[in-house]
């Protein structure tokens, strides 16, 4: 019984169906169904992976190890929440005349394809195919970013696509190098380009070539993953895209690019067995964390602030992985998960605020949003508390895990730096959100306040976050540990 193919097929199917079906509601339902299916399949995949180690299909064209399975789960959850949220969201936009029905259909067609692309990235066994899939996600999301067709959104889309495609061109060169190193003279190229094969022969590959390959892949995928200083497209795209898309971009898309980067990192480490690639991740991860803080501190746009906080979290994940002890990698992967559960909620809330006040500018919104959107603000507050790393939410635990792992491995300096960066962004986000969310309304608020929009989606994510914060199911724990072993090499 095939498992990976349906995971890919379901969203594609949904996307194509959306081209045909008339009503917006049906399209929304289709999206939800598709990703609910993938979620279910993902959970099954989880058990399969735990049972069989690696799941492959189509003569190893697709293959899924623990890392891929973990990613599949993240993609499914976030996309599910997004499509749950999107229905109401776009009804508002249509009502407000912000979008034409055609554009809305565009969204419902592209989003599942976007998801499918991400699934392909994590399920492809072949690095070249993986590259192509990343490019596909980029292209599909560009049109989503440009959906509103405002000047600013076009600008954002343009920067996103130019920087993105350029980065991917570099990544392609990296891929080519790996391929060159891999198939010296082997007659049939395809299998020799497979991940499984590459890992087997890693130690015989030409180290120089791999170094070069990693440099290009790092800059390329790093651009897509939004590592500073290649992150410049990130705040623009996140702030200009429709909120559901922003949620997917920052919830998973960044992590998908990171996943591609990790594959190269694993390969390089296996080949050189030196800290060559680690140092890249470490340096750029820390740099991203520290660069994010000041931008958050003096930010004036809600969604841009959230984007910068994503930048910071990605940086933390990179750093955690680069510290390269089982514990830190485990923490980093855990952090990936918790962040994927948290960030969409914030973006959904931001979406409600945007639709209510027709602006994202702090000076226009605040103070006193709570008086207008009590429920939204409550959920947003909880998510923000989680995002700035306060208990009882999991991000605190994952951060502590990373830092403790660092200390246990005597990487004191790095850990201290992490703590400092986290402190800085904490202060920023706290004061910014307090300024707009709390307080008394100055001007009279719009009457058609969206009191309960997107509550189901947000609740779903927050409940999941809270549950998994206090109680990680054993299989999930095992899966993450296994994934950590894949990255860190079996310690």
């Amino acid at each position, binding site marked *: 019984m095939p498992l990976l193919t349906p995971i890919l097929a379901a969203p594609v199917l949904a996307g194509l169906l959306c081209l045909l079906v008339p009503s917006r509601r049906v399209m929304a339902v289709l999206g939800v169904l598709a990703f609910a299916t993938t979620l279910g399949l993902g959970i099954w995949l989880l058990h399969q992976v735990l049972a069989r180690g690696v799941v492959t299909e189509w003569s190893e064209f697709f293959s899924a190890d623990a890392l891929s399975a973990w990613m599949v789960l993240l993609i499914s959850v976030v996309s599910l929440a997004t499509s749950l949220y999107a229905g109401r969201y776009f009804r508002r936009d249509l009502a407000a005349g912000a979008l034409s029905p055609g554009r809305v259909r565009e969204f419902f067609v592209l989003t599942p394809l976007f998801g499918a692309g991400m699934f392909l990235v994590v399920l492809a066994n072949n690095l070249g195919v993986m590259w192509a899939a990343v490019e596909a996600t980029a292209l599909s999301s560009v049109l989503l970013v440009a959906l509103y067709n405002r000047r600013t959104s076009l600008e954002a889309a343009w920067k996103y696509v130019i920087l993105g495609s350029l980065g991917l061109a570099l990544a392609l060169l990296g891929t080519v190098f790996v391929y060159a190193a891999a198939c010296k003279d082997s007659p049939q190229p395809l299998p020799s380009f497979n991940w499984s094969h590459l890992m087997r022969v890693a130690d015989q590959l030409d180290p120089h070539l791999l170094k070069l390959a990693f440099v290009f892949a790092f800059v390329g995928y790093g651009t897509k993953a939004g590592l500073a200083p290649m992150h410049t497209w990130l705040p623009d795209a996140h702030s200009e895209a429709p909120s559901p898309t922003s949620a997917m971009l920052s919830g998973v898309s960044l992590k998908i690019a990171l996943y591609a980067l990790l594959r190269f990192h694993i390969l390089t480490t296996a080949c050189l067995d030196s800290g060559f690639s680690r140092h890249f991740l470490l340096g750029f991860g820390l740099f991203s964390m520290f660069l994010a803080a000041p931008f958050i*501190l003096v930010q004036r746009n809600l969604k841009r602030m959230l984007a910068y906080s994503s930048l910071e979290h990605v940086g933390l994940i990179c750093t955690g992985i680069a510290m390269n002890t089982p514990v830190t990698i485990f923490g980093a992967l855990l952090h990936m998960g918790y962040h994927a559960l948290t960030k969409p909620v914030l973006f959904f809330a931001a979406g409600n605020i945007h639709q209510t006040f027709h602006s994202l500018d702090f000076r226009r919104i605040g103070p006193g949003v709570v008086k207008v959107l009590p429920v939204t603000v409550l959920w947003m507050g909880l998510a923000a508390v989680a995002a700035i790393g306060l208990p009882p939410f999991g991000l605190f635990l994952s951060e502590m895990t990373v830092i403790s792992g660092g200390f246990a491995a005597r990487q004191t300096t790095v850990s201290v730096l992490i703590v400092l960066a986290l402190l800085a962004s904490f202060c920023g986000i706290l004061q910014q959100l307090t300024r707009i969310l709390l307080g008394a309304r100055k001007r009279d608020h719009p009457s058609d306040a969206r009191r309960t929009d997107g509550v189901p989606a947000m609740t779903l994510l927050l409940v999941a976050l809270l549950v998994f914060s206090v109680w990680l199911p054993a299989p999930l724990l095992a899966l993450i540990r296994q994934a950590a072993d894949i990255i860190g090499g079996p310690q």
Partner: protein
Amino acid sequence: MSYTMDALSSTLLPVGLMGYVAGAVAGLLFLRRERLANLFSFGCAALAALCGVFSCAHALATGAAGARQSFELFPSLIPYVRFSIRPDALGCFFGMIVSLLGLALSIYSLGYARGYYGRKSVGVLGAFFNLLLLATTLVFLADHALFFLIAWEIMALSAYCLVSFEHEREETRNAGVLFFVMSHIGTGCLILGFLLLFQASGSYDFDSFHALGDKMPASQRNAVFLLFLFGFGVKAGMVPLHIWLPAAHPVAPSNVSALMSGVLIKTGIYGITRVCFDFLGTPPNWWGVTVLTLGTISAVLGVLFALMEHDLKRLLAYHSIENIGIILMGLGATLMFLHTGHPALASLALIAGLYHTINHAVFKALLFLGAGAVLHATHTRNMEEMGGLAKRMPWTALFFLVGAVAISALPPLNGFISEWLTYQSLLQGFGTTTSLIRLMFPLSGVMLALTGALAAACFVKAFGITFLAQPRSDHARHAHEAPFTMLLGQGVLTAACVFLGLFPTVFLKVFDPLTHQLTGQQLSQQLTVTNGLVLAGNVSTTWSGTVSTLGILLIGLSLLTVPFALWLFLARSARTRIAPTWDCGLRGLTPHMEYTATGFSKPIRMIFKTLFRPRREVQREYDFLPYFATTIRFESHVEEVFLTRLYRPLNEWVLRVSRRLRALQAGSIQAYLSYIFVTLLALLLFAL
């Protein structure tokens, strides 16, 4: 029997914790039904606190606290984390404080929260109130560093929510942010400190930290000490990390201010005690010196700034800084004695510090409740608009007076006892060493005296201007006595003040398991002479000093016979007339002619002008001669040195740098491309 009692008390503890949870849930359930929310959330809190008081007090009294083993509340699947608690002596002591206050405050809140009906959501208030109590209790009982941090952060979070409960005013919001940011920076230090310990021990259990300092290299040990001193110092409001305290305490609802001043800042004291005397082993000398010095500075500066306030709650908040300073003096002395190897004396200083901790908790909470009642009645915190309340709210006035006498360290109330113990340990400290360091003891003792005297002056002002003389505004003129529950809450604390003041020898037994745990000494026998009536302050034969507040009180009362006898003989025929105050022949005294709070503290402002840098603006309008002014507007400001010289510049610097950095993201795609380009080239060259 005692065994079952012990079992009961140890089971009561989790019951209490559950009670807080129930209270929080109830608060959220009845969001729309404010009366029910009020009743259930604060009712649950009161019951839970009662359980806490009983179990902790029992554990301490029977010494069972010494034997308690740590147990897990519920298992966790996250690596490194264990939700384990251990009610040992130190934990129980602080647990008792928080429960005692929780009891009084919950009763008080039943009445106080009515003031919010129809305006704010009482349910939210009750929920966070319970959450804060729960988290604080867990902070004191946690037996695992990460669990401690979790409880710590939840405590800070709920405190933040309570501080910004009346978030409509910007002042409140800013205060809340300031509080949370400062406290989180402190938490960062704590995290690092715990991580260093963890690095040394390989585990997060407090057991594994025990006396760990002796095994660590000196540099690391000092780093840990400084980190914790900073982290906990922020929470305790130690100068110069205190600025959040006078900002946050006044704007919170008064029952919350009481809780924060009474318990929240004590978590800092708890932390310092736990770390210094449980984890870090024998301290080097400079630790004690540092703590003692910081304590002295905090005490003096705190009371000086308090004197300059005419906002009743800010005044009380500054006094919290002062008292934290006094507590720290005790702890610092303890550290120094441990260094010189005088465990008995160290225990005495420790007892002094911790005794003052519970005292301050009690009377500061009492005073804040009084202030709350006044606020409730007059709707202002500005003392210049009060006055004459002693007639309108006699009970509140009485309770506040008791609190004022206690905090001014005047006999026979509890503040006097703990400061007396502090004096005793400081004076005896003089003999412990022959180095010049020992001069610190009497000198800091003198600073303590200065603090006490200034505190007395400050509370003459606070009580006199607020409760005595004529009302200075219509609010004050139409003030009414607080409802019964609020009075009851204050009554409980007043009783506690009196008990702690008159029966120190009874209460001393509580410290036996505690000092036994931390310094291996038990002093209660030694400090009690003549069948418990008299408290002795000497731990060695080379020193003597005794006091008995109860005795003083009794003698004083019996000496009342003297005046009464004189009445009988001489003044039987004397009558009493009520007449206007003599007004120098003017047309009657108006409130404008009364002495103001600002005027009252002017001499001190003048004497310490180098510190305060007072500025004043006088605008007078007159018709023909400046001597006959029609209106005079007087404004006077004093400078909060640390705020204006340290924190504001720092903050502005950070913001400036951040704004500069924004130029990186200037919008030009060419620039962005070149970032990537440069990165690529750099990495290529690096890879070669």
